[in-house]
C-alpha cells in the first residue's frame, strides 16, 4: 500500500518521540530490569554521572548512572568488566536514543563477587590475618564496649537493647559509620581506629541483614585489616546467620547477628552478677559463723583446761587435808584422855587400898590430940583431950586414968 500524500495524522519528531517514550515507560518489564553485559566506553566526567555502553556479542545498550546512584556503587567499574545492571529503559529525546537509566551495578552473578571474595580471603589468610592464634578472648566482664555501626540502623537499637537488658553496668562508646556504599570502608576503618584510642574492652562491629552487595564493605580489604589491627578484641556481627564476611574471619569472635554480638560481649549478665553477689554474701556469712563457732569451741576447751589447773581444786583438797588432820588430832586427844582416865582410876583404886582409914571399918580408931592434931600412937603421946575417929565420924574423949 502506498502512503497517502495527505495524511490526516501529522506527527512532529517531538511528539513521536514523546509517544515512544510513553510506550516504554508504561511497560513494567522495561521499568525494572536486570541486564547482563560487558562494559565498554566507560566515562565518568566531572559531573559525577557515569556513562557506558553495555554490550554482548550482537547488541549494545547505552547506559547512564546518575551521581547519587554512582556514590552507592560498591565496585570499581572498568571497561571489559562483565556486569549486571539494574534500571529502567527510557529515551534521551535530544538524540532520540533509548538507554538504560541504571541504579545498581553488580559483577555478573554471585560468581564474580564470590571469586573476588575468595581471592582476597586466600591472600589475607596467607598473610596470617585469620590465624586462630591471633584470636583473643573476650573479657568476661567488660566495662566499656565500643560499637561500630550505623547510628540510625536497627542493628544499633538491637545491640543497645540487648546490652541494656543483660548488663546495664557497661558503658557504650559508639563510633557511628556508614555501613554500605563506597564511603563505608574508609569510614569503618576510621571508626575502628578512633574507638581504639578510647581503649574499650571489646569492640562490636555490626550491621543488620542485607544483600551481598549491602554487606560488601565488610569484605573490603582496608576494613578487614583494620579489624585485624584493632588492639581491642573485635566481635563481628554482620548480616544474618548465613552471611560470612572477611571481617568475620579477621575478628576475634564471629557472631551470627548484631544481637548475638552484644550477647557474646556480655557473657556475664546482671542476673549472673546478682547470683554471684548472693553467693558471696552467703559464703562470707558462713565463713564468719564457722570462724566464730571454732573460736567458741576452742574457748570452751581452754576454759575447761583452765578449770583443771585452777587453785580452787587444790584449795579444796587442802581443806580436806586440814579436816582430816583435825579429825586425827581430835581422836588422838580423846585417846590420850581415856588413857589418863583409866590410869587415874587405877591409881584411885590403889590409893583406896592404901587408905589408913580403911581399917576403921573393922573397929579400929585413930586417936589424935585435940591441941595439935598429932596422932596418939603411944601412951606417952596421949593428951588430956583427944579426938577419936571411927569409920563414920569422930568424937572427943578426955583422959581419965592411966594404967
Amino acid at each position: 500500500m502506498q502512503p497517502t500524500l495527505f495524511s490526516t495524522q501529522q506527527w512532529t519528531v517531538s511528539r513521536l518521540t514523546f509517544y515512544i517514550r510513553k510506550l516504554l515507560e508504561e511497560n513494567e518489564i522495561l521499568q525494572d530490569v536486570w541486564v547482563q553485559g560487558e562494559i565498554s566506553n566507560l566515562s565518568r566526567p566531572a559531573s559525577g554521572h557515569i556513562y557506558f555502553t553495555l554490550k554482548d556479542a550482537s547488541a549494545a545498550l547505552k547506559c547512564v548512572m546518575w551521581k547519587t546512584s554512582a556514590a552507592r556503587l560498591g565496585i570499581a567499574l572498568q571497561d571489559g568488566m562483565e556486569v549486571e545492571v539494574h534500571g529502567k529503559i527510557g529515551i534521551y529525546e535530544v538524540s532520540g536514543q533509548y538507554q538504560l537509566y541504571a541504579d545498581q551495578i553488580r559483577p555478573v552473578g554471585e560468581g564474580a563477587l564470590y571469586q573476588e571474595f575468595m581471592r582476597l580471603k586466600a591472600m589475607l589468610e596467607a598473610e596470617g590475618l585469620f590465624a586462630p592464634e591471633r584470636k583473643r578472648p573476650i573479657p568476661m566482664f567488660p566495662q566499656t564496649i565500643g560499637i561500630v555501626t550505623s547510628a540510625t540502623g536497627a542493628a544499633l537499637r538491637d545491640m543497645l537493647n540487648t546490652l541494656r537488658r543483660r548488663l546495664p553496668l557497661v558503658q557504650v562508646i559508639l563510633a557511628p559509620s556508614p555501613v554500605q556504599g563506597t564511603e563505608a570502608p574508609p569510614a569503618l576503618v576510621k571508626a575502628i581506629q578512633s574507638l581504639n584510642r578510647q581503649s574499650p574492652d571489646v569492640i562490636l562491629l555490626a550491621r543488620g541483614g542485607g544483600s551481598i552487595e549491602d554487606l560488601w564493605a565488610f569484605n573490603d580489604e582496608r576494613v578487614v585489616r583494620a579489624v585485624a589491627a584493632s588492639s581491642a578484641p573485635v566481635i563481628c556481627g554482620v548480616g544474618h546467620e548465613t552471611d560470612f564476611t572477611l571481617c568475620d574471619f579477621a575478628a576475634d569472635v564471629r557472631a551470627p547477628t548484631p544481637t548475638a554480638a552484644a550477647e557474646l560481649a556480655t557473657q556475664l549478665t546482671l542476673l549472673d552478677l546478682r547470683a554471684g553477689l548472693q553467693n558471696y554474701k552467703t559464703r562470707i556469712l558462713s565463713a564468719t559463723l564457722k570462724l566464730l563457732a571454732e573460736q567458741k569451741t576452742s574457748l570452751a576447751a581452754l576454759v575447761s583446761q583452765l578449770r583443771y589447773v585452777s587453785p580452787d581444786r587444790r584449795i579444796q583438797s587442802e581443806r580436806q587435808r586440814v579436816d582430816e588432820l583435825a579429825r586425827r588430832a581430835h581422836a588422838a586427844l580423846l585417846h590420850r584422855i581415856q588413857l589418863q582416865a583409866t590410869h587415874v582410876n587405877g591409881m584411885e583404886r590403889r590409893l583406896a587400898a592404901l587408905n589408913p582409914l580403911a581399917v576403921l571399918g573393922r573397929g579400929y580408931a585413930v586417936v589424935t590430940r585435940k591441941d595439935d592434931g598429932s596422932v596418939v600412937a603411944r601412951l606417952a603421946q596421949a593428951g588430956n583431950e583427944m579426938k577419936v575417929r571411927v569409920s563414920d565420924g569422930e568424937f572427943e574423949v578426955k583422959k581419965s586414968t592411966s594404967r
Partner: protein
Amino acid sequence: MPKSSSKKAEKAVEELTYEEALAELEEIVTALEGEQNRLEEAIKLFERGQALAARCGVLLEAAELKVRQVAGDEIIPFEELSE
C-alpha cells in the same frame, strides 16, 4: 590478710565502683574462707564484706546503660532516636 586489701580498705565503700567493690569482696570471701584470721580481724573483714555486698547490690539495681559516641577524638553524649 594480704597487704593489698588492707590498703584498699582505706577507701570508703560508697566511693567504690562496682568492679572495685566486687574485686575486694571476692578477696575478703577468699580470706575469710582460707586464712586463719584473728577473730577481731575476721569480724572487721566480715563487716567490710557486708558493706561491699550492699554497695554492689545498690549499684546493680541502679545500673543504667551509658551510651556515648566518639566524634573525632572527643567523646560526646549520644542521643538515641526514640521509636
